[in-house]
């Protein structure tokens, strides 16, 4: 369980994290979403006591992380694959971390097997690919068999097989009753693994919701209608609370009416319909819609900028 209350971090006059309050519950994967620069990594670092909050509190299993006598057993984290001395072997890196809490060497071998690094475990980390570094970071996160697992962009640099492996791993960890808190800037990635979402933009809370709730709230469904009798159909459907948008010759996008209602009305009026499709916004579109005002680094079309 992670509890964050009114957490704020300022750097000079820049506010990186602005009064966040949320709870990450055990037993499910909670996605932490936001555009680049939204404050996800800073929030995670404050949860782990690496950064000092300007105000507010963050606790792991009921206490500030640094106050636990057995921190690696409370929470394991992958914050940055490059949090390793490049001159040390993967095995010695994990062995040194394990030694701080009296974790036996046998566990070091186990986590190396879990992440599939046994062939390179004795090699210097400096020669690792991004994906291998990511696996090493996950190995160190699992080292203490922690109740809480915090992963910052874990799929960065992984090949498709690695991405699939991470997804299964996160689900397995949650199924074991652990708290799994994982950040991403890709909505599609989270849709496949997370049950709950915390969405932030510019350091502020945008949504704290289940994945399905997120999609429903973010953007409206519309219905695409194709008919040879466009004008008659347009008059039939238009009305308060309904938007009929002409997309192409004989093609509309209707919002505010269900596909059933449109079909029934057309049938009653004797208008032929050639297509009737419910258009659901993709998760990615829903996410973009929700965070469009909170994007830190917005790409602007040259025409728009004028």
């Amino acid at each position, binding site marked *: 369980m992670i509890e964050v209350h009114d957490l704020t971090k300022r750097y000079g006059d820049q506010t990186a994290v602005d009064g966040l309050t949320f709870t990450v519950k055990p037993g499910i994967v909670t996605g932490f979403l936001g555009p680049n620069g939204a404050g996800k990594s800073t929030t995670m*670092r404050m949860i782990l006591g690496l950064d*000092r909050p300007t105000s507010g509190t963050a606790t792991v299993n009921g206490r500030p992380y640094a106050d636990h006598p057995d921190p690696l057993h409370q929470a394991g984290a992958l914050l940055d694959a490059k949090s390793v001395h490049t*001159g040390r072997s993967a095995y010695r890196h994990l062995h040194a971390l394990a030694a*701080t809490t009296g974790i036996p060497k046998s566990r070091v071998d186990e986590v190396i097997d879990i992440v599939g690094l046994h062939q390179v475990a004795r090699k210097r980390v400096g020669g690792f690919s991004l994906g291998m570094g990511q696996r090493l970071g996950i190995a160190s996160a*699992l080292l203490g068999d922690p109740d809480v697992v915090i992963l910052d962009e874990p799929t960065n640099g992984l090949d498709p097989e690695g991405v699939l492996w991470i997804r299964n791993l996160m689900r397995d960890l949650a199924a074991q009753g652990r708290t799994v808190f994982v950040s991403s800037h890709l909505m599609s990635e989270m849709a496949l693994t997370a049950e709950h979402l915390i969405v932030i933009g510019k350091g502020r809370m945008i949504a704290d919701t289940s994945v399905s709730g997120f999609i429903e709230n973010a953007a409206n469904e519309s219905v695409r209608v194709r008919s040879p009798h466009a004008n008659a159909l347009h008059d039939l459907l238009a009305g308060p609370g309904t938007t009929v948008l002409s997309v192409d010759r004989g093609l509309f996008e209707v919002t505010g009416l269900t596909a059933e209602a449109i079909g029934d009305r057309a049938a009653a009026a004797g208008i032929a319909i050639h297509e009737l499709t419910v258009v659901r916004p993709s998760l990615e579109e829903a996410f973009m819609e929700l965070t469009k005002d909170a994007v830190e680094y917005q790409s602007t079309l040259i025409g728009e900028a004028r």
Partner: protein
Amino acid sequence: MTTAATLETAATIRPRKHVNLARVVKSEWIKFWSVRSTWITLVVAVLLLVGFGLLASSMFGDGSDPGGPPGNEPTDPVGASLTGTNFAMLAFGTLGVLVMAGEYGTGMIRSSITAVPRRLPLLWAKIAVFTVVVFTVALAASAVVFTAGQAVIGDGGASWSDPGVARAVIGTAGLLTGSGLLGLGLGALMRSTPGAITTLFGVMFLLAMVAALLVPDSWSDAVQYLPSEAGDAFTAVTQADGTLSPLAGLAVFGGYIAAVVGAAAWRIKRSDV
């Protein structure tokens, strides 16, 4: 496979143990010996200490110019055999900087602090491991080069039983260790390997020279309190005029280390990483 592996092992690390200083020392011991730079700097330091000591000893008293800047010729056989001290200080000092600044340079510090979020045990453990290893190595090398150097010098040589000799040899190991600890503290303060190395060597080698040039005569008493001069006070057999006594020198040098390490502790405890 993944599920089975993580599930099964949940039992293998119970009971869950706590972080304590002894465990952090063990962790730092593993870290210390598992990077190449440790071995390289230690070997280089010993070679410099022994090599220059033997070279200077072989030239001591035969009237030949030992080379190097004038005015630095060793005037006593003990000093001759320990000529390599300043060179070895480069290597031990670098090792001290690397032990701490290397963590910041590579990002390792984030992993270290996640494992030891109270932070300060990391610093104390690093100091403990560094002090034990470097003092042992430096003392052994100093003793060897003193003994061998006196054998090379022959008739004019000093012996272990001469007054001040044992203190000078042990003091040399202490100076070398202390310089490394200064480097370690500067590494934590500056978080940059090049910055800390430059600062350390500037303080240990250049400050006294600059002071001698720039400080007015009425202030010249202050020069003896510089780290390098304080170090000289307890590593030389005889003290020239205008230098501290060995004990006072040791106290002043120790004071610098305490100040730098104290500032480092404050920075480590307070700063974001």
